[in-house]
């Protein structure tokens, strides 16, 4: 008996089973339906969809029944109600004590998550580069210290770092309100955080003029950099674009401040009965979350940087040397630009990880989305379904944006080879 598929011409699309009959003549026979790849594909997928829909439907109907049983009304009207608690930390959004509706609490949470992640990302990138470059140092001690740093931070849970920095290091080290460390009565440091003077606009029209001048400086710098690069491409002449831009970015706003008639004055923090009020307050919790996320993520970014630099082949360095570039030029113009292609994608994933890890702040009550939204708001309203869905939605959005950014970057830097 001969069995097999005929894979030629038409029959590729309608496979027939071959069977030698008694006379030895080969005849074609339709293969049974359950063996037909096309039918099987449809059946499998239909089963998967049915299972998915069934699971969703079961979960949905159970949820509705359970919520009715517990007297929770599924809806969004509670989002406009006043929240019976206050949020202490909100750098941008207005936060009037006792007058926040739940919508506002949500946005304050999102804002605080993004705020701490933003500063964490910047600091972790800088520290990570230092660590990564240190690991490749010709000095054995420096390289060892960097690798000990990486191993210590990578192999101990982040939550433990949060507790350690908060309860062991910073809270005991900082003084009470009465004993605040102060610098020229403008900057204060105590247990409840760092107090900075807050610039307050005195006249809105003058402030607008000042902001316009600042904007003009930024735009001017962008044009200057483009012009300098173009000129170098055409003529080979270099222009000190970095120092010129820095000068413009510092001098123009300073000049503009006086030209527009000093539109801002500083509001200093003042010592009240129990706490300082006024000014900008960066709470200890904010600082600890920022510090813990930075030191932890820097270990991972350092590994990316080290891997990226090692991935640039040694021939590049040799070629640069033979062209007469010195060590600094070689690093800056040859190694780093090529290493960046390897370093950036995993580092962007680390940025997303840092943002996700900022939810651990719930453990020390920094008021970001996990703690004031998923924690406190859930407890006061019982609207678990919507609150958790909104929280997860925020992180989905962030991770979607991150992967879009990654794809865009990968497409842009992809080597175009033959």
């Amino acid at each position: 008996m001969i069995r097999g598929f005929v894979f030629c011409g038409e029959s590729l699309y309608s496979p027939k089973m071959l069977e030698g009959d008694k006379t030895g003549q080969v005849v074609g026979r339709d293969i049974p339906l359950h063996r037909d790849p096309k039918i099987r594909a449809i059946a499998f997928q239909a089963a998967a969809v049915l299972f998915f829909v069934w699971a969703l439907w079961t979960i949905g109907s159970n949820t509705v029944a359970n919520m009715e049983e517990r007297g929770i009304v599924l809806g969004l009207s509670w989002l406009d109600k006043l929240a019976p608690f206050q949020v202490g930390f909100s750098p941008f959004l207005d936060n009037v004590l006792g007058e926040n509706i739940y919508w506002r609490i949500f946005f304050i949470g999102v804002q605080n998550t993004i705020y701490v992640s933003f500063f964490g990302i910047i600091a972790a990138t800088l520290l990570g580069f230092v660590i990564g470059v240190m690991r490749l140092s010709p000095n054995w001690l420096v390289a060892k210290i960097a690798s000990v740093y990486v191993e210590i931070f990578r192999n101990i849970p982040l939550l433990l770092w949060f507790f350690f920095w908060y309860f062991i290091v910073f809270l005991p080290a900082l003084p009470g309100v009465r004993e605040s460390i102060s610098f020229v009565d403008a900057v204060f440091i105590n247990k409840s955080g760092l107090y900075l003077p807050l610039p307050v606009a005195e006249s809105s029209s003058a402030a607008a003029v000042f902001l316009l001048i600042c904007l003009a400086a930024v735009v001017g710098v962008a044009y200057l950099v483009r012009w300098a690069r173009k000129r170098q491409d055409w003529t080979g002449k270099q222009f000190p674009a970095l120092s010129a831009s820095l000068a413009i970015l510092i001098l123009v706003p300073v000049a503009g401040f006086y030209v527009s008639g000093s539109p801002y004055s500083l509001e200093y923090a003042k010592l009240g009965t129990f706490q300082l009020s006024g000014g900008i307050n960066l709470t200890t919790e904010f600082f600890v979350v920022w510090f813990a996320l930075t030191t932890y993520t820097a270990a991972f970014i350092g590994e990316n940087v080290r891997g990226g630099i090692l991935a640039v082949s040694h021939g590049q360095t040799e070629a640069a040397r033979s062209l007469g570039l010195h060590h600094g030029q070689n690093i800056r113009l040859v190694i780093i630009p090529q290493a960046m292609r390897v370093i950036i994608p995993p580092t962007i994933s680390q940025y997303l990880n840092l943002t996700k890890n900022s939810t651990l702040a719930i453990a020390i009550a920094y008021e970001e989305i996990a703690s004031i939204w998923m924690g406190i708001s859930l407890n006061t309203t019982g609207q678990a379904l919507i609150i958790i869905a909104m929280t997860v939605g925020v992180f989905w959005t962030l991770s979607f944006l991150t992967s879009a950014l990654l794809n865009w970057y990968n497409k842009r830097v992809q080597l175009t080879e033959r």
Partner: protein
Amino acid sequence: MSKFTPIPAREPPASSVGVVGWVRTHLFSSWFNSVLTVLILWSLLQIVLPALQWLFLDASWGGANSDACKTDFISPEDGEHYRVDAPGACWTFTKVRFVQIMFGLYFAAHPSEVWRPVLMFALFGGLMAPLFMPAFRWKWQLGVFTLLVFPFIAFALVHGEWLGLPVAETNEWGGFMLTFFLAVGGIVLALPIGIVMALGRRSDLPIIRSLCVFYIELWRAAPLITILFMASNLLPLFFPSGVDFDKVVRALIAITMFQSAYTAEAIRGGLQAIPKGQGEAASALGMGYWKNTGFIILPQAMKISIPGIVNTFIELFKDTTLVGIIGLHDFLGSAQIAARSPDWKGYDFEAYVYVALIFFMCCFAMSKYSQHLERKLDTGHKER
């Protein structure tokens, strides 16, 4: 004419070989490096010596209560005697509260039952040890036994109901044991889901593929805390009102879901590393999808993805500390609670150092092992 005899090569100068040479090239290669080396050595001495002093020399190891960690102090102001904290670490604390930190409240309250978790860990060690011996021949069978049968033995021993022992309810479980159960249970349960999802993500069937991508990205995008909150707040809503899980099971479900997505990605990496020719050769031999996948692709892909899975396991092992936030007493949580009990107040630094040391040892050993595996398993299949 005399025969040409080459002069033997001169020895390299003594300053460029041996210890002296190494020190010169690695520590004092330039004036900048020399300054750096001296500065670092000096600051290391400032940090490491006091740390060692605190950790070992001045530490108190014996005793049965916090008095062992205190020392006499005569106040210069009023001349009275005070008992104040000794300058060293108080390892008496971790010694006295060892059972609570390791096995949780139930076993701390019932010292006669401590043999159960100890026997469980000993069994686990006994089962794992042969897997690391190259000469052991029944690795495969032992591995399957450990995966499929051991969890039931462990549960029976620790919970105790099946063996007629006094019952240790799951909500009284805690300490390192709970961390171990959640992490190991999570990875074992996540493995089959991860395999299915990884295969689904690489399937030719568009609906299956998009469902699997949806599943994987759903869990990967959300932080573990939100998933733990989901499990503790939403899971009871999803099931008919009679069904209720206890806290440990809820956390385990959350961790499994979370981990399965990461496992799936690790396995997908392995699947992508298998050259296409392997699957094509299997098809040419007449193997269908299941045989092809089960006998040709998966065994090779799993082998390649083991280091990746170990890496995700290390992350998971550290992340299990988050269950403390939804009210379970894991390793970190138990140590914290022990350090906040009235008779041991003020020893939380010791608690954190102790937990950190054990986490470090476990994770460091696993990551070194995963790197070793990566080198050992690298059979040149990976396309570079």
